[in-house]
Each structure stands twice: as C-alpha cells, then as structure tokens.
C-alpha cells in the first residue's frame, strides 16, 4: 500500500471541538515494534473500512505500566497510570479499544481504582461488535479452508475471560479452526508476560515460546492466529526456532481480516 493512512490524534479532534467514537490505544509494541506496527496499521485500515470515528493519543500516549507492575515496580506503574489517566480524563475519553491484551487488562481492571474509568475493549471484541452491527463485513477470501489455530493470550483469556470473540471472527473467515491441546482457560503462556519480554529467561531446559510453538505444531496449522503483540513476537520467534517459517505463519486476527479484504 503506497498511500499513507490518515490517523487523527485526540489533540486534533480537540482543536476541532469534536469527540471520536473510540480512542484507539496503540500501546508501546504497536507503536514501536516493526511486527506489531503491521497489526496497528491493519486495524486502522479496518477502522477506516467500517467508518469508525476514532483517534489516537499519538505522542501523548505512554506505557500503560503493565510490565512495571508485574515485575513488582508498583511505583512506576502508578506513576504511569496517574499520567495516562490525567491525559485520558483531560480528553474525556469514554471508550478505549486496544490491540494489546496487556494494555486492555491494565486499563480495564487496574485504572478504575486510580481514577480512570473507561469502557475498554480488546480489538477482537470491538471488531466483532462492528460485524454484528453490520458495519464491517468479514468473509473468507484467501483464508477460506485454511487450517488455523488460535493461541489464547493469557491477559485476554484467563485474565479476562475473552475466548470467543477472536474465534468467532476466525470462523467468519471460513477457516478450519483447530484447537491446541492447551487452549482457552487451559491455554499455555507464550513466555513474554510479567516482564519476561524484557529480560533473559531463567535457566531451564527449553524456552516457553518453543514449547508453545511445539504445541501449536501438533495440530499442523497453516497459520497460528494471535491476538497480542507479545504473543505474536514470541510465536514468530518460536516458528523460526523450529525452522517452520516457510510452512507456518503467525498473524494477528485483525491482520487476517484486513488481508481477507485485500486492504
């Protein structure tokens, strides 16, 4: 795609005296990580397609604090939260959508007690609601009949009981949805949560992402579908580690829908 997509910021909306339908919380991975940026763009294209009036915070967004909190740095977490809440409340944000389950969990569950009350949705849940409202069409396209397994992100699934929205979207893509031995509430971590993404793992006999990739390979998928930028990275690395990058792709659910639309 050659043309640059239009991504309005909250500051621009404010200047025009308008309020968007949703705030798209991009997250650090979605903003800076090369792989996750593709998901961010795919999701923005879907928002355009569905004519959703959205804005991002842009340079006013900051880390939600999840890695700091789960690593034990409650001070840093609450500093981040206080700053973010000030920005969000300043713009009178009501509804937040994010493609990162870690941002989703923190904003939804941990910000309210600190003064940040918003309706927070994971992008798969939001896309599903667009589908149900008839604003977005999801159909098979190039994924029709492909063998797909969905890797449940811990902070979407177990942490917040969102299991069906991503699967419903995948079914609309007319794929052959296969479940791993460990799925849904028994899902197996990708290995990145709790700050593990930013440190060397403790000594063991295998990396967590390799173990999870092997579990995925057991069901012989064409694509491992992800719903989290951390999982996406870990599973992509795992697939590379098993020399399967020619046969298995790792894709975010939003990317798959955007691709099926040829966006």
């Amino acid at each position: 795609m050659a043309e640059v997509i239009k991504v309005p910021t909250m500051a621009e909306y404010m200047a025009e005296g308008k309020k968007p339908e949703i705030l798209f919380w991009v997250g650090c991975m979605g903003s800076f990580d090369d792989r996750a940026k593709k998901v961010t763009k795919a999701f923005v294209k879907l928002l355009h397609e569905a004519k959703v009036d959205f804005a991002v915070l842009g340079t006013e967004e900051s880390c939600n604090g999840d890695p700091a909190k789960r690593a034990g740095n409650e001070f840093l977490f609450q500093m981040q939260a206080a700053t973010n809440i000030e920005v969000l409340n300043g713009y009178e944000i009501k509804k937040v959508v994010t493609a990162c389950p870690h941002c989703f969990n923190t904003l939804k569950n941990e910000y309210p007690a600190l003064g940040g009350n918003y309706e927070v949705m994971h992008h798969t849940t939001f896309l599903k609601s667009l589908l149900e409202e008839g604003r977005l069409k999801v159909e098979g396209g190039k994924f029709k009949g492909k063998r797909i397994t969905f890797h449940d992100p811990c902070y979407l699934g177990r942490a917040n009981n969102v299991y069906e929205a991503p699967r419903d979207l995948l079914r609309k893509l007319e794929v052959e949805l296969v479940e791993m031995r460990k799925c849904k509430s028994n899902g197996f971590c990708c290995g990145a949560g709790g700050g593990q993404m930013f440190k060397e793992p403790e000594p063991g006999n295998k990396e967590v992402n390799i173990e999870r990739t092997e579990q995925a390979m057991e069901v012989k998928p064409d694509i491992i579908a992800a719903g989290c930028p951390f999982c996406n990275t870990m599973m992509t690395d795992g697939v590379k580690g098993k020399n399967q990058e020619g046969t298995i792709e790792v894709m975010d659910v939003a990317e798959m829908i955007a691709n099926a639309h040829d966006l």
Partner: protein
Amino acid sequence: MQIIAQIAFLIVLVAGIAFFTRNIRRVIRNVKLGRKVDRSDNPGERFAKMARVALGQSKMVKKPFAGFLHIIVYLGFIIINIEVLEIIIDGVFGTHRILSFLGFGYNFLIGSFEILALMVLLGVTIFWLRRNVSNIYRFLGNELKGWPKNDANYILYFEMVLMILFLTMNAADYQLQLNGADHYAQNAGIAGSFPISQYLLPWFEGFSNATLIIIERTTWWLHIVGILIFLNYLYYSKHLHILLAFPNVYLSKLTPQGKFDNLEAVTNEVKLMMDPDADPYAMPAEGAEDEAPEKFGASDVVDLNQVQLLNAYTCTECGRCTAECPANQTGKKLSPRKVMMDTRDRLEEVGNIINEKGSFEDDGKQLLDNYILREELWACTTCNACVEACPIGIDPLSIILDMRRYLVMEQSAAPLDLANAMTNIENNGAPWPYNQMDRLNWANEN
C-alpha cells in the same frame, strides 16, 4: 465393666477434640499474623462460589479420572461421618446401634456406607498406585520428596485401614446379631444391612461369641480412635484442606484474574508527587510519625495478607498448578506448589517460635532466600495458569508478585535487563529507549 468403657471413651473423645481445637486455634492465630485484607464484599456470590467449587468440586473434575476418584473418597468421608455420630452416641451411652429405630432407612444407610467404604478402599488404592507406581509428572517434583510424599501416603494408609476396620466391625456385629448374642441381638430382627461385610463372615466360622465380641469391640475402638487420631493428624498434614477448602474458596478473589491489587501506600505517595500544591517539607500529620514506615511488598510471611497465609494452610500439594506452570514445564526452578509449601513451612516456623517464646523473635531467617529463591520469583510469566488450575482457589501468583515488589521497591534488585526496561518506561514512556516523540511514526511509514 461397661461403665469403665464409657468413661474411657469419653476421655478419649474429649482429649481428641481438645487437642484438635488447640491446633486449629494455632492455625487461626498464625493466619492472623498476616496483613488484614477485606473480603467481606459480595457474600452471595462468595457463597455460590463456595458451593460450586468446594462443596460441588467443580474444578476437581477438570481432570476427570482423579476428580471422579476424589469425589468418591469425599462422599465416603462425609457420609460415613453420619456413622461416626452413631458410634459416638453408642460409645457415650453404652448402647448398640442406637439409630436402628429408623428401620428400613437405617438399613439403607448402613448398606450404602458399606458400598461407599468399598469404593473408598478402591479409590485410595488407585490413588496410592498413581502416586507411587505411575509416573505422573506432578507427583515427581523435588518439593514432594521426603515428608510431603510420606504424608500423602500416610493419609491413604489411614483411609484404607479405617475402611477395613469399619467393614470388619460390621461383619463381626452382623455375625453376633445372627447368633442372637446379648446386647447385639435386636427384638426387631437384624439392625443394619451388610451388602459388603457379609462376605467376610466365612472368616469367622467356628468363632465363639466371646471371640466375636473381642473382634467387634477391638475394631470399634480402633475405628473411632483412628478417626480421632486422623482428625488430629490434619494439622500436621496437607490434609487440612478438607476443612480449609471451604473458607479458602469463600475468601478467594472474585475480580478478574488479571486484576492485581494497587498498593494503597504507593497511591498516596504518587498523589503527593503529582500534586503541585503538596508541600514536601510539611509536618507529617499528627500521629503519623509513630507509625512504622510502610514496607513495600513481602520478604517474610508476616508481610503477606491473611488470605495468602490461609492459602498456604489450605494447599493440598496436588501440583495441578505446577503441572500447568509454563516456567516449570520448561525446566525452570519455579513451582507454584513449592511457593505455597514454602509459605506454610515458614509460617509454621514463625508459629513455633511464638509457641516457645510467647512472641516472635527474629530468627535470622525469612521467606525470601531462605525458602523461596529469587530465581524462582523471576521465572514467573504472571500467566495465571496456576491460579486457574487450583481446585480450591489458591493464588500463588499474588505471593510471587508481593515478593517481586519487595525485591524491586525495597532492594532495587530487579534483573538488569528488566531494570533497564523500567528506566526506559520512566524516561521514554516505553520499555525500549525510543523517543516518545516517535510514537506516531508508524502512521507515516509504508
């Protein structure tokens, strides 16, 4: 003679219950060493969860085979306790099968106890084989060597012996009733129904009534004394779960698993830091200087909250948590079960110091480093698999997080890479050293 037996029974009964009460009070005292935590919200939802998870065993059956066996042993335990009620009345008043006036209902009860006793016997035998013969991953952990392994087996032996005693007692009783022996024979015919123990009768062939009475009395006494010993063994054993599973589930977290508590002390500090009007040199509020400075996170059991300590006493060491833990599955040192066992062991150690010296005196040890290693704590991905796996609502993750908080906020002892990521978050608003001003660059990239 009879009156001596009654008095002896009363003494044994009262002593057994008194010793049990003393130990339970110790458990309560030890749990109260922890920080207070408010779980008085939503009693309706909590009762429903307790009924479902503890009483209804809904999470046990996630592993269908072990869950099914557990339900048999659990039902056997509860229902056979009705029989214990009769044994106690008979023991105190010197009566025989006092509840037999219930007629058909009584026969039905005793009959079903016998069938349950046999099923429990089978169940615990299979449990023993699973633990000692099958190579089941969660029973092979390092933390399960020594006492924990023996403890598990003792419980199974205990249950086997109690069931065998129960059936032998019934058989001898049945034979005595058939013989029309004094005290045993009833006017209304045979009291009770013996679908299982009747098959033991051939063993008693040619036994005199006197011999049968010795067998019946011996097994009766061993059975009830065994139950009292078992009751008192609970405190020293992982078997305490049969009592604590209920309050433990009731008090467990109702909020989404991903929601971790926000430390209130930190909130106050952050508010002060963010408040432009705050006077950093202001006198502390009256009384505030008397309070001990707040310790962030946990390095010992007294820093944990009461629910976390109750969790430790409730843990059955089944290892379902460890079997699901991604760190453990990939050979790392972390085992959520060990976190719970360590917490209990350390709490017992602290409790014993209080028993001996009247109050806690520093023994130069603590939960961190002496029991739980930093390497274990840092291996956790906070994925909540352990919390989900626990059949009785234990939350090992919350202990791991509180100990990480101590390491980071009190000791600045985070692993270097992680400390760097935190510095980046602080300075750049992202875990990587990118400029905050570049956050929207993706929108202009192809």
